[in-house]
């Protein structure tokens, strides 16, 4: 029997190219205070806390332990951490609440991509014997996937530019977006590629950011918000690490996660998918079954702001906020991790009728 769990509050900081004045604790604290205030909860009223981050971004051992200072973990709290995007911290918190002993959870994530060599850092997640020693960067890996899409006749470079243009145009309505502008796709196509076939605009910005949500179960959720964003389905799947073992033109893990999460069980009002590179949005639309959907990434998505470890939870938060506001009834959020969409999480959120 699955317990009803909902998101009842969302907070994020404005995404910036680099937060050079504040350390991670100072950067995160206002987001935590805001999300708890929105839910009307103090830390000692929250049952479980789970965070997502990676110390490799900041180059500091136990960075994530230091940032717990910002939570105010006293009296001692039940707490966990994943070396993953906050979307997976949310998954762990959702599982924890399924056990029935606790009714609320704080999920947060943060990441400063600016201080370090982000591409070198991300390459540390690759096969340590055969791939990591070559130090391939994330753009090159995404470009391999883009080429595979073009070769298969599944997309054109104009399609990539369309995603890039639409994302930044949508971001004009998002006060938290980092990149927001309105340029026609044809103009973007005229730029030279940086890693063929990808152009600069097909790639995400480098971003520092943080995001947090509050989860609540059953009756507790109704006490905290008049219109909770219920998690109707949530699932995540992973594909093999070696790129050669995968079909880079599809996302079988997203398809499976979407099926398990029940995406097609009802009408979808809004989609927020985590596609740091424009060709990936095309793959994910098909995998989620929302290929022609008119409202994909109204926030601008990861192309408008890509705080590593945060962009996935932010997609879930963007859908949840629209359900909480009443501007959407049912939405789908997606998060990804690993090179070329290796691991994918799908979450279906819905308000009460």
């Amino acid at each position: 029997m699955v317990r009803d769990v909902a998101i009842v509050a969302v907070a994020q900081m404005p995404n910036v190219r680099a937060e050079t004045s504040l350390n991670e604790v100072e950067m995160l604290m206002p987001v935590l205070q805001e999300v708890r205030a929105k839910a009307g909860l103090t830390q000692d009223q929250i049952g479980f806390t789970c965070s997502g981050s990676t110390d490799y971004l900041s180059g500091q051992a136990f960075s994530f332990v230091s940032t717990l200072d910002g939570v105010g973990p006293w009296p001692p709290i039940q707490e966990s951490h994943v070396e993953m995007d906050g979307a997976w911290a949310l998954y762990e918190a959702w599982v924890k609440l399924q056990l029935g002993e606790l009714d609320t959870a704080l999920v947060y994530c943060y990441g400063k991509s600016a201080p370090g060599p982000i591409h070198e850092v991300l390459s540390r997640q690759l096969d340590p014997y055969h791939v990591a020693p070559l130090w391939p960067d994330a753009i090159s890996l995404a470009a391999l996937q883009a080429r595979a899409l073009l070769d298969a006749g599944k997309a054109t470079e104009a399609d990539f530019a369309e995603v890039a243009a639409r994302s930044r145009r949508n971001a004009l309505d998002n006060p938290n977006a980092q990149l927001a502008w309105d340029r026609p796709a044809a103009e973007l196509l005229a730029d030279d590629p940086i890693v063929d076939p990808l152009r600069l605009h097909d790639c995400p910005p480098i971003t520092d950011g943080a995001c947090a949500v509050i989860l609540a179960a059953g009756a507790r959720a109704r006490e905290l918000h008049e219109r909770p964003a219920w998690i109707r389905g949530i699932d995540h799947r992973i594909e093999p690490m070696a790129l050669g073992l995968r079909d880079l033109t599809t996302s079988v893990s997203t398809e499976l996660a979407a099926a398990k999460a029940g995406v097609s069980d009802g009408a979808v009002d809004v989609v927020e998918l985590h596609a740091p590179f424009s060709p990936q949005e095309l793959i994910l639309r098909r995998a989620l079954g929302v290929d022609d959907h008119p409202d994909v990434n109204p926030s601008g998505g990861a192309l408008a702001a890509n705080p590593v470890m945060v962009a996935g939870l932010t997609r879930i938060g963007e859908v949840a906020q629209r359900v909480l506001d009443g501007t959407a009834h049912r939405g789908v959020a997606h998060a990804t991790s690993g090179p070329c969409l290796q691991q994918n999480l799908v979450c279906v959120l819905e308000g009460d009728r």
Partner: protein
Amino acid sequence: MTSQDSGEVLSAPLVIEYPFTRTTGPVIGAFLTGLRERVLLGIKGSQGQVLVPPTEYDPATGEELTELVEVGPGGVVDTWCWVRTPMPKHPLQHPFAWALVRPDGADVGFLQPVDAGSPEVMATGMRVRPRWADEREGTIHDLECWEPA
């Protein structure tokens, strides 16, 4: 406290260095030994498909794999991209291609640099051959890169 209150914020360089030495085990050890000897190896999977680089377990069934096979020497480009401005740690420091190179006899490609000279030379399906490093120690770097064949 806002960031504006603090005046000039201090910063300093921070270097992290890991001198890892990794145990290879017999399968990866065989593959790297092969590279040192200028021999490319794959391994037969549960369905008879040849995997490069060889893995200890079948990626679909999890079954332990033991049958190493020689592959190559040449291969085919399954997908590629062109790096116009190499990053400092890239294997080549002039414009080059990354590709998934599938050695002859293998069913799977693996990530390798291709020194093609220009992106116009690159095409999915093109044939390539390995350029071996002059000095080889049994690491992935023994394969310096691939060239159009």
